[in-house]
Every structure is written in C-alpha cells, then in structure tokens.
C-alpha cells in the first residue's frame, strides 16, 4: 500500500464514520466515540513508542493536560480552538519533558514518564485547591454531542494520516533506526535527540487534542477523572496487543477492546477485568507480535523491516 492509497483510505473511512450520527442511537454513538478515541490514542502512541521501542506511560498526562486546557478556557475559547490549544500545550509540554528525559531508556523511561504524569496531576490538584479554591471544574456550555463526535473523529483521523506520513518520511526511518539500534543510527548521521523530541511532541499533540475534545463530555472535570492512569495503561495495552509497529493493528484492537469493555464491564465488573487480565497474559505469551501479526502473515509481507 503506498502513501497516496493509504491517505485516501483514511479519508474515505473518516467520511463514512462522519455519517454515523445520523444512523446510530445515542448509546451506539457513544460506543463509536470511545472506539475512535482509543484508536486515535493508540495510533498516536504507537507512532513514537512502537517505532522507537521507548515505552512511554505519559499518555494520561497529555490527555489530562488537554482536558484542562478546555476546562480553563471554557467560555473564553471556542470549542475548536480549545481542541487545538489542548494539543499544542500537550506537545509543548512533551517537547520540554522530552528534552530532559529522552536520554533514559527502558524501565527508567517508563517509570519517569509515569511519574511525570502523576506529578502533573497532583500539581494541578494542589494548584486548584490552594489558589482557585476548587476541586474540580464544571463545564457549563458543552457543545452538541455530535460536534464532539466529529471533533474526536477529525483528530483521530488526523493522527492516523500523520502516522502514515511519518512512516514514509525521513523522521519515520530515523525513528525505526533508533528503535533497532540507537547508537548505530547516530553513527549513520541521525540526529537521534531531535528526532525523538519531535516525534514525542507530535504524538503528544494528538493525545492532548483528544483530551481537550473529550473534556466537554464529562461536564464535571477533576484531576482523578482526566488524568486517570487507566486511560494511559489502556492505550499502551491496546497498541501493544494490536501490534505497536503497525498502524492497522492498534485500530483493530482499539475497536475490539472498547466493545469488550463496554458490553462486559457493566454486567460483570470484576469478572470482566479478571478475564481481561487473563486474556492479556495469554496474548502476550502466545501472540507476542500482536493482532497485527495475524493478518500480516497472510496479507502482505513486512515492509522494509
């Protein structure tokens, strides 16, 4: 599949999905929204982490920052602008943080990105309590739920399109080079530091924009909701179960996970998570390449790998 065909597929898919609000009931639309949000998060996570083998747990931080941009700007900023601003703030934060911590690898990087997320969450909790005298914020004027749906769809489609472009671009090559052997990539002239910071910020942009877009769904925003580590973990799980080196894999597994979660969690909350845990272990042990390795085998050979 070349880049043009890929982008056209994304465009066609997004247009088809954009028609869903006229076809589905409110409940099913909410379900579709959750699938699309996780697809966007997982693809943008895999854009950086899948290629470079850096395990970032900071998604919840970017998502929450984006949501808080919407909450702080509510009333002052129009919805579309606050989605954009949420993405930009998250990307700026990622670039700053990336410059400081991207020399760490492996478990250190995972722990510090998780720690940063928690640090931001607790700092915002403290700031709101000490200086604003509130625990959470109410978003009074929420846009229509269809508007939110289209915004989330737009951001997610943009994330997929960007992932496609990055994969073909020099940046994607550099990232894959870093992933297989960082020192060799540097020897061959890749500016690893710049490539990593750029890709980290790019992937944070989409997480932040999705957080900003989703914030209005909650009407009441407080740090435990929007910085929920579960959002970050779920994203990592979805991407890795789907196959983080691919783009289609995370999308497929985002849909599967969201459907499973939605239908089973309400009925059997604890048993569902027990089964989810078991499923996850079995998948990692017996299908380590992710869901994508199933269809890669009989559709197309691995490209450039």
């Amino acid at each position, binding site marked *: 599949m070349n880049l043009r065909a890929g982008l056209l597929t994304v465009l066609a898919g997004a247009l088809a999905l954009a028609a869903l609000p006229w076809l589905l009931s409110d409940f099913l639309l909410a379900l579709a929204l959750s699938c699309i949000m996780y697809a966007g998060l997982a693809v943008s996570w895999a854009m950086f982490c899948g290629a470079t083998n850096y395990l970032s747990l900071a998604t919840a931080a970017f998502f929450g920052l984006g949501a808080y941009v919407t909450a702080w700007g509510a009333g002052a900023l129009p919805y579309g602008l606050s989605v954009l601003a949420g993405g930009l703030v998250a990307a700026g934060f990622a670039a700053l943080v990336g410059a400081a911590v991207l020399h760490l690898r*492996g478990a250190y990087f995972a722990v510090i990105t998780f720690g940063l997320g928690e640090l931001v969450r607790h700092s915002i909790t*403290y700031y709101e*309590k000490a200086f604003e005298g509130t625990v959470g914020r109410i978003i009074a004027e929420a846009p229509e739920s269809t508007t939110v749906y289209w915004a989330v769809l737009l951001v997610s489609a943009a994330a997929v399109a960007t992932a496609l472009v990055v994969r073909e671009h020099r940046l994607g090559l550099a990232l894959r080079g870093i992933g297989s052997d960082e020192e060799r990539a540097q020897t061959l002239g890749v500016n690893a530091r710049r490539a990593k910071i750029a890709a980290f910020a790019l992937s944070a942009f989409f997480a932040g924009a999705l957080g900003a877009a989703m914030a209005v769904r909650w009407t009441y925003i407080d740090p435990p909701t929007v910085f929920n580590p579960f959002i970050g973990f779920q994203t990592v*799980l979805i991407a*890795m179960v789907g196959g983080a080196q691919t783009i289609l894999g995370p999308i497929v597994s985002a849909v599967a996970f969201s459907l499973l979660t939605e239908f089973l969690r309400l009925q059997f909350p604890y048993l569902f*998570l027990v089964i989810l*845990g078991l499923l996850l272990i079995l998948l990692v042990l017996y299908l380590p390449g992710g869901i994508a390795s199933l269809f890669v085998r009989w559709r197309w050979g691995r490209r450039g790998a």
Partner: protein
Amino acid sequence: MSLWFELAASGLITGGIYAVVAIGLNLQYGLMRILNISHGEFLMLGAYLAWLGYSVLGVNPLVFLPVVALVMFVVGVAVYRLCFFRIVSTAPAVEVIEARSLLVGFGLLYLVQNAAYLTWGADLRGYSFLGDPVEIAGARFTANRLVVFAFAVGASLLLLAVLRFTLIGKAVRAMMQSPTGAQLVGIDTRFLHPVVFGAGLALAGVAGALLSMVYEISPAMGEPYTVTALIVIVLGGLGSALGSLLGGFLLGVVETFGMHFTSPSLKMVLSYGVLIAVLLARPKGLFAR
C-alpha cells in the same frame, strides 16, 4: 527536639515497609529484567492471608508470618513458571523482555486484584493487634508500628546477608553483574530465576502481612505500594538491594518531613519530585558509583 525525633522515627517506620516492598521488586528486575507491575497485588494477597489467619484461625500474625512467606514463595514460583518463563526464554532481546513482562504484569494486576474483589468484596477489613501506645524518648508510637519496623528492617538485613554471604546469594549477585558470565561458571539460571522471583513475592507478602497489623486492608491497597517501590528502586539504583533499603528510608523520611512542613496533599508531588530530581541528576540511582 522531640518533634524532630518523632517525625524522623515515623519516616523510618514507613521507609522500612517501602524498603521490603522495593527490595523484592528490585531483585526480580535486576536478575531477570522483569518489571513486575503487579507486585503490590501480591502484597495485598499477603495482607489478606494474615487477616484470614488472624480472624478465621485465630493465629498471631507474627507467628503466621513464615506461613505467609512460604505460601507467597510457592505462588511466586508458580507465577514465574506459568507466565514469565516463556517470556524470558523466547524473547530475542532484553528490551523485549522488559516490554512483554510489563504487559503480563498489567494482566496479573487486573487478574489478582479483581479476583480479590470477587472473593472478599470492596470493604475495608482490619483487626487490632498490639494497638497500645509505647513511649520512647518522649515520642509515642503504637506498639504494632514498632514491631512492623523491627520486622521490616530485620527481613531486609536478613536478605542482604543472604545475598552477601551465602553461595546462592553470590550466584544471584553474579547473575546481576553478568548473566552470560554467570552461566559460564556453572550457575543454573533455570533454578535461580524461579527462586528469586518467589523470594520477591515472599517479601511482598511479608510486607503486606506487616501492613495489615497497622492499617485496614482492601483489594486496591497494593497499587500505591507498587508505585512507591518503583520510585524507591530508581532512587537506590536498579539491581541494588542495599540501594533499595537506603532509598526506602530516604523516601519515607522525605515524605514524612515534607508532609509535616507543607501539606499532606503534597505527598505524591514530593515523592515524584524527589524521583524526577534524582533521575535527572543521577540517572543511575543515588548510590551508584
């Protein structure tokens, strides 16, 4: 003066528990590159075992401690055999082991925590054990906290001694320094890995049993300890047991003093602040040479 003493002492008591939890996790990571994110869930299991022992069988939790350790050791060997053995033996590179074991850890976290919810429900449980206050140098502590501190430090020191002086301890340290080299001189990985993994869970179980004497227990109690243990092992250096002991004490004291002089809601900000400062200044841990 007595305020400072009291703060330092209660910081050390908290730190002692942190150290026990962190040393187990650190051994697993240092030896096998398994970052077991579900470590805290096994701490929770240990706490429930001690609670069951006390409330159903009427056994003194201190007497029950070896039983908890043994049960959790067996559980650990089984978990290693069922989950991590396959990852360690099939993964092509160390980074792959780290990533996959992290995922399996998440799976275990969901599995164990929610199985506990199904079995025992979400209620807080507890029992009172040695709740009388004791006065030392003008500061008052409940007796159980002192017992917990003594046992936590005792368990950590015992483990450090085992690592330093026994043959198996030397084998473990050799494997941490150079896995290939250790195998070349005849150290059996297939024996050592399950044993160390089991020992890690046994330590987590003991920590949980100790905590159950002081605090109320619930199926979600483990998670914060996992996070704290991660902070502690990064503070003390991945793979260093002594570093974890000192890192645990440091974090306990910093948290206690920080909370006293600023505000309790800043507790997590303080611990993560310490973590990030240390990682930026000394990426290999505070006590690395």
